[in-house]
């Protein structure tokens, strides 16, 4: 939104002090509206799709744990499985090692899993 544009169709305040003030107000409202729309969209996502995304991440984590165990031999220099497969996969594994290790090493209470959330009883 620029100076000269107007919130009242057919009426231009270009160049005048009032015109610039209106343009500035328009810009402020447009930005606020955009922020509000984005916040609402995220709020809706939090109430709807976020839980599925989290569960998908957890399922992937379970798979990755198996995967890490399979490739761990090569990581520490012991060829447990034919290295031709695991070596091809290693570049994808290495960046995940730090977060995977943290997740696996932390002791969990049994009720801390997402699936035991009671949804507001």
């Amino acid at each position, binding site marked *: 939104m620029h100076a000269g544009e107007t919130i009242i169709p057919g009426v231009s305040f270009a160049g005048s002090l009032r015109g610039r003030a209106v343009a500035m107000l328009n810009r402020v409202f447009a930005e606020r509206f955009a922020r509000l729309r*984005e*916040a*609402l969209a*995220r*709020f*809706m*996502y*939090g*109430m*709807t*799709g*976020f*839980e*599925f995304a989290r*569960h*998908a*991440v*957890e*399922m992937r*984590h379970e798979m990755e744990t198996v995967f890490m165990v399979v490739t761990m031999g090569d990581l520490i220099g012991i060829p447990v499985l034919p290295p031709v497969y695991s070596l091809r996969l290693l570049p994808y594994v290495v960046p*995940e090692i730090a*977060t*995977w290790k*943290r*997740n696996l090493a*932390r002791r*969990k*209470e*049994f*009720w*801390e899993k*997402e*699936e*035991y*959330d*009671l*949804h*507001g*009883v």
Partner: protein
Amino acid sequence: MNTLLAVIIGMLTVYLTYTRYARRIDRNVIQSDPKRATPATLYMDGVDFMPTNKNILFGYHFKSIAAAGPIVGAIVAANLWGWLPAIIWLVLGVSFIGWASDYSGIVISIRNDGNSLSAIAHRLVSPRSRTILFMFIFFYLLVGASAFVGIMANVMESQPRTHLGIILLTAMGLLLGQMLYRWRTGLVGATVLTVGVTLLGILAGPWTEGIFKSFNAGLNAISGGTPLVTYFDPTLANFKGADAQIMPSLLFWAIAICVFCYAGSVLPIWRMAQPVVYVGFWISALSIVLGLVGAALATFIKPEVAQFVLPAFKGWNPQLGPAGIMPLWPMLFVTIACGAISGWHALFGSVGTARQIENEADMLPVGGGSMLCEFLLGLLALLAVAVGSKGAPVGAFATGLGGFISVWGVPLQYATSLAFAAFIVIVLVVTQLLFRVMRVTLSEWLGDVIPPVRSQHVSSFVCIALAILVVMTGTWIYLWQLLGGANQLMAALALLLVTVWLASVGKSWYYAGLPAVFMYVTTIASLLVTSYNLYFNVYQINLAAGRVVPVIGSGLMVMVALLLIVAALFIGFDGWRAFLRYRRRPAPAPTPATARA
């Protein structure tokens, strides 16, 4: 009094509490620092610890804490004491206690490396407090599941119009899980299909009412119209108490609910529990949004549905059954739980939401903001029952909410169907989760001593059998108050833990300590009153009539209530000693905030 005024009071409460009190505590007492690293950023593991945008977390946390609790509590309380005490407690409770409990649950976890409340209690209070919290959770789940099964079986038997919607909800939930996780369909398309079909099923409910009525009549004809079980129910005959009967149709629907919950308990979470909750969320969210806005607009568009019909005040100690007592203090404060304050929120906030908070400045909008929104949900339930006080409490709620929805031009018959279905959907999806958590708790608790309960089928069966036994006492109001007592006691213990922590780090503890004392004394008193009622109003009457099942069920409930009191006394004693220990110790020197990466 009309609904517009009540909505304005609600909005003002939210605004004033957030801006005038909660922000001040966040700024001056907790001193949230956007530059301090949170566990989500420090220990990011890609699964549990994950920095997440505050608006997403706000939606996630609100959805996770908002369900049947604020609705059922408001319905029961308004019918027992009138709408005025209920609205006063909702407003004062959320303003001074509720938001503080939810917010502090997140704060204490974030300031303690993302640890759960039980782990922090183990460290700060005493090792046995963790075990006591564990036991608390099991009995909390038992009374919760029993109360909900009892409520639902009665509503489903008396409202055949809801059956088609519930059957379709189950089918669509299963379909949604298959579509999302197996067929990899997009979420939007799958949502439109499954929620749309369920909604059509709910709206078509009145057309299929006759079919299900005939079905129920056919079931009852099996026993020749004679009841299977007779028990004394103090909530009947306008709360004077009368004999109630369990007909084959009611037993059928109770078993159907249990089969549903059993499937939700043992199937993988993605297969049934999660997608059913998701479809149910849309149905209930639609009803709540339409209802809340409708309640505000009704004064101008349809004034006849906006006027309060229920008396403002029904008495300090309304009669419930021949020997029951129901004093406003302490019973109101446990009957309305989640809309004013809830212990489960703090427990969930500490293990779920706290580990995803990206920035300390997000703690208040996510924790406090969600609780204030939950208060609005409780207020809506109260308004619905206050304007539509016809028949049984749940019926009054559905009539009232249906009236609000009808403001949008939906015929009243369909709007009421939607309101009934929304209520059952909310309760049903929560109940299956309750059984799921209960069977896990049971196998963790007794798995080493009794190996068979490690099997998910055995533990699920045991949990359902226990719940059915308690349901057979027919006293869902007492079950609800027992659940409220356990829940509020958990809130008191969470606040007590926050108080001990605040004392241990040399901060002002009054904002958490004073509500903790109030809730602790109130909930213990309420558990004593509930035990008294169960013994004199249910146990003895059924014993005199020689009814075995209600006697065992009510006896079990009395024992649970007493057990909760003993556990609370132990943890309160340990908490008090810990508090004094930290108070006598000199305050630690302030540590510099860790810089965020």
